[in-house]
């Protein structure tokens, strides 16, 4: 890259500048946790180091990276000064700063990439080609860091209320985000596996972070055991692919599978096992069994993070493996994925209808959405790729909006949020009810919300590639899904509140964040061009 900064041979540091920043801040936040309130002892030196590095970067000619590093570390120290004995605030500020800085660096990468090559981007490898810094990677970066940026303020008050404001939460969220982005950039099987484990291990712990809650423990353990089995199966699949091709690099695998036919059976077994492992992560039927319990048991802010960000990472992986390594076998895997998608759309919607607990319902709804996204994957076109990215981005935004509202309700309840909980919310808190409704309408795919455009783009990609039957199943599932989203809206607006009516709890920050998310969902729904064009640009940049 032309604008690269500190040139150490063979490693283009700027290619993963956002991850470097986030990892550094996460490590610093872990240290903050052991200062027993004397946060400045850590943040002071970190800020000094960060500002120093920043100046060095600016001198070396990379102004954006330098400014971001300096500002993020300085704000961490600033939070320590302002709130001397409140480690939790310092941690939240640090995590938000890291996410914001990473977003800024991602935008910088995107603009410098696009402007330098006048729109024609040759996706580049970094770290000896084990990472692919392409459109998919930039998309995953942008979305995952945005999710972190939103989810930290959503969870702050909630964690405090439930007395699980533990020091490890923010660093683990940051590590998980780095793992997810690394997964989306991974260009060989070793990196894929390491990245997968980095974010999975962080999520196993996060799911169990409500230590005194048995459901949280159960969620953590279930997720861990099932996830470990899935990882093992994935690893087995990778090994078989290695046997068949003699390499671990995804593009090389793609080339070899394209020409060699001798090891076809082994390769097919490998693809089958990898499909199991990957579809477990994105929770397609029949590998969805963990979702409901994990979503319900984990603290809701962690669930929001998992729902929004894990889907992004999982589908980025799915796209890269199937489009880069297995294009020769598209006739085999596309129908299989299509069947899984169809099953997910129908089963998820069918089971969600009978759910009483809203988080559980969201879990099954996430299964149907994984199905919709898969329509864009099996289309195997640039349009399909763009539609998948657009869908995942809007889904992440909508999910955060919905979970933000659910968290606000849960905080006042100190317990699970069921359909009965929200009866009459339209009376007791019209603003929150309206925000939750925007999220639900978008999930249902009602026009003038981001969800409608997302569904539209995915269906369009599907029809263009001849998957009409799959799209029709998607429509059927949407009608069923509309029923249970609508039922929630109905409970809020069409019923009068009962005596022990819920009075949601949220602070100003949360109010602003939720409002912004709702505005974004509607703006994208009305004028989607900017995001659509970005998705189109990124789609042609796949390595």
């Amino acid at each position, binding site marked *: 890259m032309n604008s690269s900064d500190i040139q150490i041979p063979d490693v283009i540091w700027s290619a993963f500048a956002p991850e470097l920043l986030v990892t550094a801040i996460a490590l610093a936040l872990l240290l903050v946790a052991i200062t027993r309130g004397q946060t400045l002892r850590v943040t002071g030196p970190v800020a000094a180091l960060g500002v120093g590095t920043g100046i060095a970067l600016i001198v070396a000619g990379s102004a954006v990276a330098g400014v971001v590093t300096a500002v993020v570390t300085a704000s961490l120290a600033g939070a320590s000064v302002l709130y001397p004995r409140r480690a939790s605030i310092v941690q939240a500020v640090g995590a938000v700063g890291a996410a914001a800085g990473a977003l800024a660096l991602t935008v910088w990468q995107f603009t410098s990439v696009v402007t330098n090559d006048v729109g024609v981007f040759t996706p580049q490898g970094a770290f000896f080609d084990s990472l692919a810094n392409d459109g998919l990677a930039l998309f995953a970066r942008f979305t995952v860091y945005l999710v972190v940026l939103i989810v930290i303020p959503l969870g702050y008050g909630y964690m405090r209320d439930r007395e699980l404001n533990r020091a490890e939460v923010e660093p683990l969220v940051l590590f998980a985000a780095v793992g997810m982005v690394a997964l989306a950039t991974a260009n060989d099987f070793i990196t894929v596996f390491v990245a997968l484990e980095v974010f999975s291990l962080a999520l196993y712990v996060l799911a169990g972070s409500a230590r005194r809650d048995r459901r949280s423990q159960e969620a953590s353990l279930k997720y861990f055991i099932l996830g470990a089995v899935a990882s093992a199966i994935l690893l087995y699949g990778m090994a078989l692919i290695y046997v068949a091709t003699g390499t671990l690099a995804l593009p090389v695998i793609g080339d070899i599978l394209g020409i060699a036919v001798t090891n076809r059976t082994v390769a097919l077994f490998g693809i089958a096992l990898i499909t199991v492992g990957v579809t477990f992560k994105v929770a397609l039927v029949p590998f969805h069994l963990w979702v409901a319990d994990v979503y319900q048991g984990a603290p809701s802010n962690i669930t929001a993070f998992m729902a929004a960000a894990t889907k992004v990472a999982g589908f980025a992986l799915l796209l890269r493996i199937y489009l880069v390594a297995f294009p020769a076998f598209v006739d085999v895997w596309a129908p299989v994925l299509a069947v899984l998608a169809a099953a997910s759309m129908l089963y998820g919607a069918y089971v969600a209808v009978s759910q009483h607990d809203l988080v559980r319902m969201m879990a099954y709804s996430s299964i149907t959405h994984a199905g919709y996204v898969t329509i864009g994957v099996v289309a195997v076109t640039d349009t399909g790729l763009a539609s998948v990215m657009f869908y995942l981005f809007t889904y992440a935004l909508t999910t955060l909006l919905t979970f933000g509202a659910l968290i606000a309700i849960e905080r006042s309840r100190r317990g699970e949020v069921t359909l009965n909980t929200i009866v009459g919310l339209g009376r007791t808190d019209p603003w929150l009810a309206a925000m939750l409704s925007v999220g639900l*309408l978008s999930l249902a795919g*009602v*026009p*003038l919300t981001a969800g*409608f*455009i997302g569904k*539209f*783009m995915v*269906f*369009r990609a599907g*029809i*263009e590639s001849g998957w*009409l039957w799959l*799209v*029709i199943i998607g*429509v059927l599932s*949407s*009608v069923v899904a*509309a*029923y249970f989203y*609508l*039922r929630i809206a*109905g409970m809020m*607006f*069409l*019923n009068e509140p009962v005596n022990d009516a819920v009075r949601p709890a949220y602070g100003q920050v949360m109010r602003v964040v939720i409002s912004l998310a709702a505005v974004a969902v509607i703006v994208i729904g009305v*004028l*989607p*061009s900017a995001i*659509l*064009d970005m998705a*189109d640009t990124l789609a042609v940049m796949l390595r």
Partner: protein
Amino acid sequence: MGMITVTILLPVIGAVLLAVVRSLTVKQVQTVAFGATVAAFVASLVLLSQFDRTNPNLQLTEAANWIPAVNAQIAFAVDGISLALILLTTFLTPLVLLASTSSITDRFRGYAAAFLLLEAAVIAVFAATDILLFAVVFELTIVPMYLIIGIWGGANRRYAAVKFFLYTLAGGLAMLVAIVYLYTKAGSFAYADMLQLDLTLSEQRWLFFAFLAAFAVKIPIWPVHTWLPDAHTEAPTGGSVFLAGVLLKLGAFGVLRYLLPLFADATRLYAPWLVGFAVVGILYGAIVALMQSDVKKLVAYSSVSHMGFVVLGTFALNTTATSASVVQMVNHGLSTGALFLLIGFLYERRHTRQIAAFGGLGAAVPVLAGFWLIVSLSSLALPGLNGFVGEFPILMGTFASYPTAAVLASFGAVLAALYLLWAYQRIFHGPLVSDENRATPDMTRREIGIITPLVALIIAIGIYPSPLFNLVEPSVERVLIETGVGETMTLGGGAR
């Protein structure tokens, strides 16, 4: 910015005002809402003055880029059919809001805002010439109506609201898939480009049914009408008026604008079937209406029957019948709208709609009885009132193509006289015995003011229908030529 955009934006501005300015008193909310709808009505009259009646094509075109990535535009234009229906919409909405000021006491601000958004969406449906935009606003009409039924409706409102939502959403999504398919063929969403498409018959069949799913539910065509009686009965008065007056027309309009011209071969293939379903709907709706004890339910089923006439005329596929069904759409909007208003007035006084509870009311409320009689007669197509100039040419035109269907449908008109007059008799005639009936107050000046414009139009169209026919006929002929049934059948004298 052209006049169509202005007409759509005025109600939207009103709704935004209501949503943003929280400090308005109830009186001010009423003023803003009423003002916005009257302004929209004036704008639509300006639109009418700009409209060239001799030109059968879509005109007064306005377009702006919307989603360049998929070649979608925000594009509007009107022909005679859509202009007639836009005028109907902008005419009815102020009356609906005015009628609701006394009956809706709870959260009137939200109620008015929902109506303003609904009006804007409906006008956009009639004016859209980009088919994606059409699909979006078509679906969008569901949400405010769902809220109006669900929040301000009767005892069983939740069931009715959800049923309404799911029926119409399911139909709309089927259409959306077909629209995407058309888009992949045409490369844009422009209506003009869609018309150029050369589709095979088997493609046309599938697309025809996907579009029909959306429109048949909205109209509604028997047997997918079952949401309508529930929605009508549970909706507040304003909701019922708007539903009958305008929302049911969305489907019939869609048939004329999209189903017929885009899938001409399939249309000619399936037209006899739809004529058959229309006849069943006419007779079924009329017979079920006869048996109702709740007067609002009676009118709801009469809607099924009357909209059956619209479908019958449309699929008779000749100028006489098809033009008359556009006229009948307007007529049904006026007559049934007026009936629902009167039922609402009566309900506000007595809090019951059971016909058995009334009797001899004619002596207590002579003004209400008089209006009720005129509107009933209009609805049963008495010559000299608007219903006749719609239904009679429909039957005439249909007789030329499908004699049996026309004869059977005529029985629907006879049954309409039976159920409407019988209901009138049981409510207003006979001895005035019960104290409650005797104490029922007559219509207030405000209520008379609301119903008078409707009745005036009912009589005016009945006596002198040619302006309305002249407005819609060229466009209907264009549609029929595009459908490949260019024959123009004119009747000597007759209805006009």
